């Protein structure tokens, strides 16, 4: 039983990172109905920027988180302006945007490789002190607490932003119906740009958290795994649904860990895609997805 709970703790800390990444994925989809395949590259850039901040410049963790948020947020604005906005202006379909997002990902990864090299990097030891807390036979590390705490704070902040602020309401309005929102005076392009800022900032911080959770794994190519897992998470939770993406991410994280414990690690990646398959067969709209009514 202890082992089960211990693995649950591991699964939740892994899943929370998947979730944070998937939230950014799903938000862009919800607003623009495009799958932004540059999102995994943003995750890698976030982790690498944080590496420079933590290792080379030696700044503290809170400042590193804040700077990474800002840096990848700005990168999101650049991405939108360079890769997506020109297509929107020409009324290109979602498929064209998908292709430019692949192109943007390739460019970002190659640039990152130029700047940081291809070798895996690690944050300086002691970025988060090695400390353990025992709760009824369970060992929880400070690292796991910090990661879970950061994800919870960010997700709650996102929730408040979406429900309580004008910009959040504008994003939801655009997601509901872009044409009507524009007619009602919502500045469409600015709202979309802000969405990219927001999602990229979250993706960048997810990269930082991955870098801390798996020390020594920071490289320009680290986003690949998360791209697939994140995609599975948002389909699992229902495309465009933030709570669904959270739950999807957590389910995949916990599922992977449990498979390693009780079956074999060879089946690890089968979880995400097995779950995905099941959901698509049984409930094609995803766990929390609703049938979209505005398709007519």
């Amino acid at each position, binding site marked *: 039983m*202890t*082992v089960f709970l*211990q*693995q649950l703790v*591991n*699964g939740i*800390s*892994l899943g929370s990172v998947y979730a944070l990444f998937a939230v950014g994925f799903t938000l862009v989809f919800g607003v623009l109905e495009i799958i932004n395949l540059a999102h995994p590259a943003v995750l890698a850039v976030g982790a690498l920027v944080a590496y420079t901040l933590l290792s080379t410049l030696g700044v503290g963790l809170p400042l590193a988180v804040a700077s990474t948020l800002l840096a990848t947020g700005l990168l999101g604005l650049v991405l939108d302006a360079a890769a997506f906005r020109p297509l929107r202006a020409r009324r290109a379909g979602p498929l064209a945007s998908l292709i430019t997002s692949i192109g943007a990902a390739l460019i970002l990864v190659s640039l990152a490789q130029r700047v940081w090299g*291809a*070798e*895996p990097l*690690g944050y300086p*030891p002691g970025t988060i002190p*090695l400390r*353990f807390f025992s709760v009824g036979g369970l*060992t929880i*590390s400070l*690292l796991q607490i910090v990661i879970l705490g950061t994800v919870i704070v960010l997700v709650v902040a996102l929730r408040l932003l979406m429900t309580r602020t004008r910009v959040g309401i504008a994003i939801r309005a655009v997601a509901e119906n872009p044409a009507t929102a524009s007619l009602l005076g919502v500045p469409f392009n600015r709202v979309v740009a802000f969405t990219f800022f927001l999602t990229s900032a979250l993706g960048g911080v997810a990269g930082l958290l*991955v870098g801390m*959770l*798996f*020390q*020594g*794994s920071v490289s320009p190519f*680290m986003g690949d*795994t998360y791209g697939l897992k994140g995609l599975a998470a948002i389909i699992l939770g229902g495309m465009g649904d933030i709570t669904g993406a959270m739950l999807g991410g957590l389910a995949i994280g916990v599922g*992977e*860990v*449990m498979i*390693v*414990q009780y079956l*074999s*690690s*060879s089946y*690890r990646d089968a979880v995400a895609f097995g779950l995905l398959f099941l959901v698509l067969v049984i409930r094609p709209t995803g766990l929390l997805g609703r049938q979209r009514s505005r398709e007519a």
Partner: protein
Amino acid sequence: MLKRLLIPMLLITLVAPAAWGAAGATVKVGLAVGITGDIAVYGTPIRNGMELAFKRINDKGPVHIDPILEDTGGGRDGAINVFQKFIQRDRVAAILGPVLSSQAFASDPLAVKAGVPVVGVSNTANGIPQIGPTVFRVSAPEAVQIPKSVAVAKKALHLTRVVVMYDNADDFTISGYKTFADELKKNEIQIADTITFARGDSDFSAQLTRARAVNPQAIVVSALAREGTLLLIQGRNLGITVPFVGGNGFNDTNIIKRAGAAAEGLIVGTAWVPSVPSAANLAFYDAYRQAYKQEPNQFAAQAYAGAQVVAEAIRRAGVTGTEPIQVQREKIVAALYTIKNFDTPLGKIGITKERDVDQQRTYVAVVRNGRFVELETP
């Protein structure tokens, strides 16, 4: 005016004897080493070890060797290109290298076809000398080192119960795992659990938690350097304090650099430790530190030994560099077989009938205070 003449004159005095030597009596040896990119962590000490050895040998005589260094990078194609250049353009009498076993499998057949002797200094996979009748090595294969690691670790840690973890997506780590499993059985050490992961994985928390759940005395791992480093770090992050026992993939000082304190206590089999009791090692150790201002490692020592072995074969064959190239190559191949009980930084080594290394003593090292030191048994 004088100043203007000085530099050309200096150049002439420097170059002339070298040109003389080349025209007269030097034997060309190709050094195929990857010194750029990822592979540089192995390649740099290997190049240093070879160059140091040839410098000392040339200073002492009687053989005079002209080492030609070419960068193979980390890939197979790079190794093939360098071998082709050495064999056809430079027309070398022997080749040292390449760094990786996977590169050796690709490039060594070219040398076999041309009859050029190759001495590997860092290839530890099974089947390297079997590539062909001109392929030798001085690097002890993993199959020789693991039994020793297991026996010594058992003694030092009083092992009766371990967990085995291995990468099931890579040929070398799988073969390392099989050797480990056999040896553990022979030593009557119980394997409480066998857990796999795959090359490229980043998250090992689930595997490590599962390993910890059965309370082993040590965790035995067959992994490559990247996954090995991540395992060490995450193990310590999860509060695992039992020692790790690693295969040859862990035999890399870079792991200590990346894993930092998490590498403390790691046990690996190795062909060399700083304290190897041989005259050749003392001379090597001091000369290396003086020349490069840093500690040598296993790779530098093996490279030095490989260069010594080639030079010794050239001496015994009586090759001076004036013979037709094919004669030089044949004589060196024949002479390599005669090397027995030869003093190197690795201790006494010899070449077997199967062209593999016969190293009288290999070592088991443990990481203490950020350095590999020999593991003392009680």
